[in-house]
């Protein structure tokens, strides 16, 4: 019962958020002078940015500039690297992500993640989606939740007849959409995507990009990509990082038409990177 009420609360929030498009978007994740490192190496230096609700925010920049490090800080996935360290503050809806009050397991229920390479579990398609809701005590109709998640991930029609086959029988693009379905089955607030298309062919990439467009109304998406066209196509805001620093962060249109910094201009026009 509690779960049902919870879900309907989430639903109504989703609706009101979509209705409120013209209002100033509120901040979901906010970095304040955030510095991230591995041991003594500084990977992200003094970054401050606000990620708005129900928008797609792209993080672009050359390889090794700290995009993944910044993204993985947002759901504390950097915790798996023993040498990782944090200075400054990172807030999720006002909660300091790195304070002892924040439980990383609880946080990851709200902030889901899709990885660079599709990483389904070596289990059936159904179990891939159902596992996380199950361990998190979902009491509703599991079959329905699995179907809805796969539909939202634009995968249902392709897999509805083989739900109990191993996920590895799917193509790379389908596997990645399965990973998206698996993440949204928990009804997260935010979806972090780390170069979700870099292991995929152009057609699969286009499908995922369409999907990101659709997800935008329900979730706040933070998308890391090294593909500038992709950032231009799917994102509302774009952050450009270079050598661990945030060079510029603005509406995607502004970034790609009249960027404020010379370096952004150079990168976007392909003069380096």
């Amino acid at each position, binding site marked *: 019962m509690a779960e049902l009420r919870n879900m309907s609360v989430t639903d109504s929030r989703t609706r009101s958020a979509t209705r409120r498009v013209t209002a100033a978007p509120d901040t979901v994740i906010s970095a304040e002078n955030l510095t991230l490192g591995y041991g003594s190496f500084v990977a992200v230096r003094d970054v401050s940015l606000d990620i708005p609700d129900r928008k797609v925010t792209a993080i672009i920049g050359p390889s090794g500039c700290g995009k993944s490090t910044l993204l993985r800080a947002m*759901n504390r*996935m950097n915790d*798996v690297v*023993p040498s990782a360290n944090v200075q400054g503050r990172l807030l999720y809806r006002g909660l300091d992500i790195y304070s002892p009050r924040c439980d990383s*397991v*609880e946080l*990851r*229920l709200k902030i*889901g*993640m899709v*990885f660079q*390479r*599709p*990483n*389904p*579990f*070596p289990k059936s398609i159904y179990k891939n989606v159902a*596992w*996380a809701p199950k*361990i*998190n005590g979902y009491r509703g109709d599991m079959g329905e939740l699995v179907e809805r998640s796969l539909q939202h991930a634009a995968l249902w029609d392709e897999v509805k007849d083989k739900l109990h086959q*191993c996920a*590895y029988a799917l193509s*790379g693009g389908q*596997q990645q959409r399965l*990973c998206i379905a*698996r*993440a949204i089955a*928990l009804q997260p607030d935010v979806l972090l995507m780390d170069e979700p298309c870099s292991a995929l062919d152009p057609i699969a990439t286009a499908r995922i990009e369409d999907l990101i467009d659709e997800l935008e109304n329900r979730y706040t998406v933070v998308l890391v990509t090294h593909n500038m066209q992709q950032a231009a196509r799917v994102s509302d805001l774009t952050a450009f990082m270079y050598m661990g620093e945030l060079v510029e962060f603005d509406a995607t249109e502004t970034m790609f038409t009249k960027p404020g910094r010379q370096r952004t201009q150079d990168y976007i026009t392909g003069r380096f990177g």
Partner: protein
Amino acid sequence: MNAEPLDFQPGLARRRRAGRLFTLALTAAGLAGIGFLIVLLARVLWEGAPSLSRDFLANFPSVLNPPKAGVKSALWGTVWLMTMTVLVSVPIGVATAVYLEEHAPNNRLTRFIHLNIANLAGVPSIVYGILGLAVFVRWMHFDRSVAAGALTLSLLIMPVIIIASREALLAVPQSFRHAALALGATKWQTIRAHVLPAALPGIITGVILAVSRAIGEAAPLLMIGALTYVAFVPEGPFDAFTALPIQIFDWCDRPQPQFHHLAAAGILVLLSILLPMNAVAVALRAWHTRRKAWQNSGI
């Protein structure tokens, strides 16, 4: 950039000859190994097969009447011993491997422990016998019981189980762990639901190979004073016992040729337990390699 032609002397004939010679040497080495095994097996079969019968399995050993002697007590002793050894060594060994691989910080102490476990796997079994005698038999007063033998053998195979389990855990792709953690799983849920199942065939293979080592060990059991002549089947963990390798050793030690035939028959019984165990281990490994889709899919 158009320099004069380079001077090559391929010497193909010589290289081909070396290749053929090497192939020949390798084939000979392989055949020699198999040949020895066949000769050994044939000899044991020749000597032991006539003594092998239902009675041989159902009778207790007899010093006075070799034709009526059997391996009942030794066979049951081995069954008791191995069951208890597995019950003790597998949970502790696998848990240790999980701790070392999934939880322990990567510091000097952990590396020191790794190194020592690898070393322990190479310690001669008689040394474990001495340890078992001091700790389990004398200090803990288990006497020459199944419990003392099983604990000694558990110590003997624990390093092997830990190493095999660690390798199996190491082979589980990091991406499974990340996927589970990112879905709001705790560390234990991640290990329980994804890491252990993926590592399980490797762990089981390691356990089988370790147990098949323990099953043939006589030295540590003799060291803790296991009896060579036992005319009863153990009924509890604290009963005295004998085991197949000890019974075989005892029969070999006697001057009369009848006992040597009994020893050969005992070896056949031991082999008929060992070979299927190893076959299962090999099959499991093959099946697992085929099933590990994540290795072939390039994910």
